[in-house]
């Protein structure tokens, strides 16, 4: 069976395979069930770049508040906050970073089972008059961001809201665009993009899963 090679997370740390991480887009032969599209080093570089882009766009970080969307967006926002602190010493670190749970603002709550509500934590200074940078792992339909915008509206009146995503996979359903992107990733609608982060998944990687349906057909053939 050809499915064993690229299976993620199980056991083999992705860092142990440092061979040419850039282009594993092997469309040759039987499509693999899952493929890595970003390695730990690439995620690192993308976040460093985004941190500097945020600083450049906003002329420093004085009025910037990074709000991560749980779960992985929070960790990404924390990493961005670390990098901004490194680049701009003397920044008020407590006011820089928070997290925004959007569960109660979702438009699909009535589908599927009840969702657990996450924590919202806004820096003590609030978000009034600040530039809020929303941070999420994958930008897809844009519905999460719409919900986040609604949630922000109830928390205060920021001067501006910007959007940072580690991966933009396209297929937007709403007129929403990101300001800072780690990687643009053209995908098929039925593919699944998974962001793994050390803080929750023990490994840093971005993986595309082709749907199980196709995988099963491969096996059947």
């Amino acid at each position: 069976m050809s499915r064993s090679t690229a299976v993620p997370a199980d056991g083999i740390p992705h860092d142990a395979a440092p061979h040419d991480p850039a282009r594993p887009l092997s469309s040759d032969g039987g499509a693999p069930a899952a493929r890595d599209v970003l390695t730990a080093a690439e995620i690192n570089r993308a976040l460093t770049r985004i941190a500097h882009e945020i600083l450049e766009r906003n002329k420093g970080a004085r009025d910037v508040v990074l709000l991560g969307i749980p779960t992985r967006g929070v960790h990404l926002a924390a990493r961005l906050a670390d990098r901004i602190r490194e680049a701009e010493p003397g920044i008020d670190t407590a006011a820089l970073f928070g997290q925004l749970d959007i569960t109660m603002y979702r438009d699909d709550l009535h589908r599927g089972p009840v969702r657990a509500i996450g924590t919202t934590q806004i820096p003590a200074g609030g978000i009034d008059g600040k530039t809020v940078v929303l941070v999420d792992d994958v930008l897809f339909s844009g519905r999460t961001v719409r919900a986040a915008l609604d949630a922000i509206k109830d928390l205060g009146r920021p001067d501006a809201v910007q959007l940072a995503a580690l991966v933009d996979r396209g297929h937007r359903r709403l007129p929403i665009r990101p300001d800072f992107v780690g990687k643009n990733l053209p995908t098929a609608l039925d593919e699944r993009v998974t962001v793994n982060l050390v803080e929750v998944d023990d490994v840093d990687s971005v993986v595309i899963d082709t749907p199980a349906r196709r995988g099963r057909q491969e096996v059947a053939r």
Partner: protein
Amino acid sequence: MKHLLSTADLSLDEAVGLLDTAAQMAATQDREIKKLPTLRGRTVVNLFFEDSTRTRISFEAAAKRLSADVINFSAKGSSVSKGESLKDTALTLKAMGADAVVIRHQASGAAYTLANADWLDAPVVNAGDGTHQHPTQALLDAYTLRRHLRSGTPGVADSAGAVGKDLSGVKVAIVGDVLHSRVARANVWLLHTLGAHVTLVAPPTLVPVGVGSWPCDVSFHLDDALRDVQPDAVMMLRVQRERMSSAGGGFFPSPLEYSRLYGLDARRLAMVPDHAIVMHPGPMNRGLEISADAADHPRSVIVEQVANGVAVRMAVLYTLLAGEPAVPATNERS
């Protein structure tokens, strides 16, 4: 979880989950804008056959903070006073499209009947039925206990620090009119599920028959119980004189004697550990089961219980209403 009828039905995971959700709801209530859009377009009917101030207002506030529409129904001035049955009332509510029904009724089991008689599809929340159960009161009591006693820092109340925790190791004394108290029954089962140790303290006349099968200890002497158990919380129950046939005469000799033997005052408060909190579900009979000293003591959390009630009821409505409506094909009745 389709309905919330009794705390005896709740598993440990469900109970802790509800308390955790309540903690998140409470966090939103510190904001300038307290309203959340979560239950927009849903209709919650408050069906109150029995007088209530705080429970009804609390449920109404909880539903409105989640943007649900609220219809209040009280038996006084309704067709019930013309003799309409619970069934016909339920069918009317169904026809009007109620998405959830909160019921308070003087008959034990009314909520169960409403939920299980196929009159309604909507989730039913028991807001007190006779002398049977009052699950949201027990949940808000558990939430208050957890916030004060399991916050991770002794003596500091912290909802966030208590998230995910149960009440194991916590000792609670529930004192007073256990016989007529649905609050006591609801608390005994919920606190037991959460791992707390409950001691009921009451005069023998106010202890129900069959209490031996409940998961708790029973004592007839308040002083002894406070000294021996050293409870982390003392929960006083209201003497329900409206449920006593001859104005209290049938169960204890006189209010003064009851107050001397089973009332919480400054002297008895000095017998319990310094961190212990004083609770009361309200409304209080000041001077009967609780003295003004105890009710207004810095360790009294009675007013906070009311505030926590809104958060807990928001969590209950969210849990029962936010998800997919129960699909008859896949959902076995629970």
